[in-house]
């Protein structure tokens, strides 16, 4: 079976086939034999050179979530038909709402020059105020919101035109 995974913006091709009781994988062209058994509670038990590891896998759409020793990995199973949408979602020098909330204050104006870390917006979510800082140095290009406005997850808030390094 041939699969493509997206991890940290890198596409990794994986060929995976059962090999007797074990598995034979070809990750990015490199052959990797793997001893992995699915146990009754749904976890995978994998023999590695550091000993046996226990992993849990869950899926949501093309997302694959893996739990291993307190850490969570997020991968994407690549579907070649819908490639471009992810890239568009990656964002540029504009701030979008990470979660629903209410705009409390906009302490900057359009055209204002801001440094990295400069507070450009104060948002209240779950009754806590969060100060959003400029991720880049530059000029405030567009302010999409005003104080008192309720914003939903992913709503555009503010755009900054980054300074050009000289």
């Amino acid at each position, binding site marked *: *079976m041939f699969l493509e995974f997206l991890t940290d913006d890198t596409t990794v091709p994986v060929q995976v086939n059962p090999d007797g009781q074990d598995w034979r994988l070809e990750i990015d062209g490199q052959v990797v034999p793997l001893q992995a058994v699915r146990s009754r509670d749904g976890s995978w038990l994998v023999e590695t050179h550091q000993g046996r590891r226990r992993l849990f896998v869950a899926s949501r759409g093309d997302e694959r979530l893996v739990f291993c020793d307190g*850490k969570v*990995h997020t991968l994407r199973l690549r579907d070649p038909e819908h490639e471009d949408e992810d890239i568009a979602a990656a964002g540029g020098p504009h701030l979008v709402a990470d979660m629903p909330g209410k705009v409390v204050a906009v302490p900057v104006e359009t055209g204002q020059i801001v440094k990295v870390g400069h507070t450009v917006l104060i948002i209240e979510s779950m009754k*806590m105020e969060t100060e959003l800082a400029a991720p880049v140095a530059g000029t405030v290009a567009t302010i999409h919101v005003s104080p008192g406005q309720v914003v939903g997850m992913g709503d555009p808030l503010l755009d900054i035109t980054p300074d050009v390094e000289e």
Partner: protein
Amino acid sequence: MSESRIDFQPISRVLVANRGEIAVRVIRACREMGLGTVAVCSEADRQAPHARLADQVVVIGPAEPSESYLRQDRILEAAQATDADAIHPGYGFLAENAAFARACAEHGIRFIGPSAEVIEQMGEKTAARAIMEKAGVPVVPGALLPEPDEGGVFPADEVRDIAVQVGYPLMVKAAFGGGGKGMRLVQDPEDILDACQGAWREARSAFGNGTVYLEKFIEKPRHVEFQIFGDGWGNQVHLFERECSIQRRHQKIIEETPSPALSPELREKMGAAAVAAARAVDYQGAGTVEFLLGADGGFYFLEMNTRLQVEHPVTELITGIDLVRTQIQVAEGRPLPWRQEEITAQGHAIECRIYAEDPENNFMPSLGQILLLHEPSGPGVRIDSGIEEGDEVSIYYDPMIAKLSVHAGSRQNALDRAVAALKDYAVLGVTTNVEYLMAILQHGAFADGRLHTGFLYENLPDWRSQRSEDGDLALAISAVDEHARQSRGKAREIHGAGTPARSGTCWGTLGRFRVNGLD
């Protein structure tokens, strides 16, 4: 003080006016005591664990807390409709709402907590300070601010003068606040007016009252609180301390007891102060006296929480006392079952709060469905959880989804136990702080017990996951899992629509059947 003021009146059915892990915790205690239980839930929580666990459940409104868990009228209606004779408020929501405690009394329903007057006195931080000062409990130097105008602009000169008298660095705090909301640290006198205005605004929107005051900032303080208990017979005791210095934005994350900072002498001194605080208001029920503990051993009254605390399990683990059971007994009018000298502690306990939030993205709450949940277990491991696999973590409620508490013979053993349990705490679907918690516990300064409320900012700023170490393994198992998943899918297609027949049971050969008219 010793004459009886409450007649003994047994409780037969308790309505739990809360949700999540604390509602589950209270319902369990009631069931153990043979009491009837009533859960209330919002429309979003019909399937929630607390709603399922109780004998009866009443849906009290839409998901928004203001339309359900904060609706006093609907909760009281539910209590009357189900013939509940007591209400346990848990923590948060209506737990420290004096008007609600009063309304319960007016409806002839017992509020499991202190009197409305005490809630009121302790809820108003400046009044609480004054009472404690009078009772000889040390308080942090501070001062009230004059009223701002309608836009929250304070009289500049006056505020600057007061601030200088209190001394920098200082804190701006909401008089009616809690949970870190409406709070600002001011190091630079330049920032004082902005901070006052910000705190005023936040306090007004969170608590409906913007009154703020200034307080001297104790540098690198520890947060050490004492569990207290009082009854209606004039008895007040403490159940030792909890160190809650591991905080982020004034939200506690890890709590432990005993505090590594307390000598037996200091413990006795602080315990006596906590009991004095409880006596000052003739406290009845479970409460907590919070202190700031300076590096020099000086301690100051911070506030008194008139409810069960989130972190109460660590006290239960070292004392062997069930705090919720005792709360109910006291509400029935019984005297405390133990005298101060009968309360003993054994071993060390640590609690880790599991939050659905992303430590790598400014600790933003992480919303969505819990796709997979596997909780750790074993000797000395206690889980208080309000979620189950398939549940939705929504914007409406607190992102704390569970608590892991461990108990062991020594601090080091408890630490090892907590780390091992976290390593086995699988939550997939929402991002959690599990790995972050492990990083805190495994930090050298934590192991050394060098704690203070700025610990996380000092020792783990810009924390990043170490997941890349196992990145290859995660990728490999994802591929194997996908292969297994797709093979199973194919197997189903070949065998037709039904689930594969299992040998040894009758289910495989029965075919379609009906139960109660449902397929």
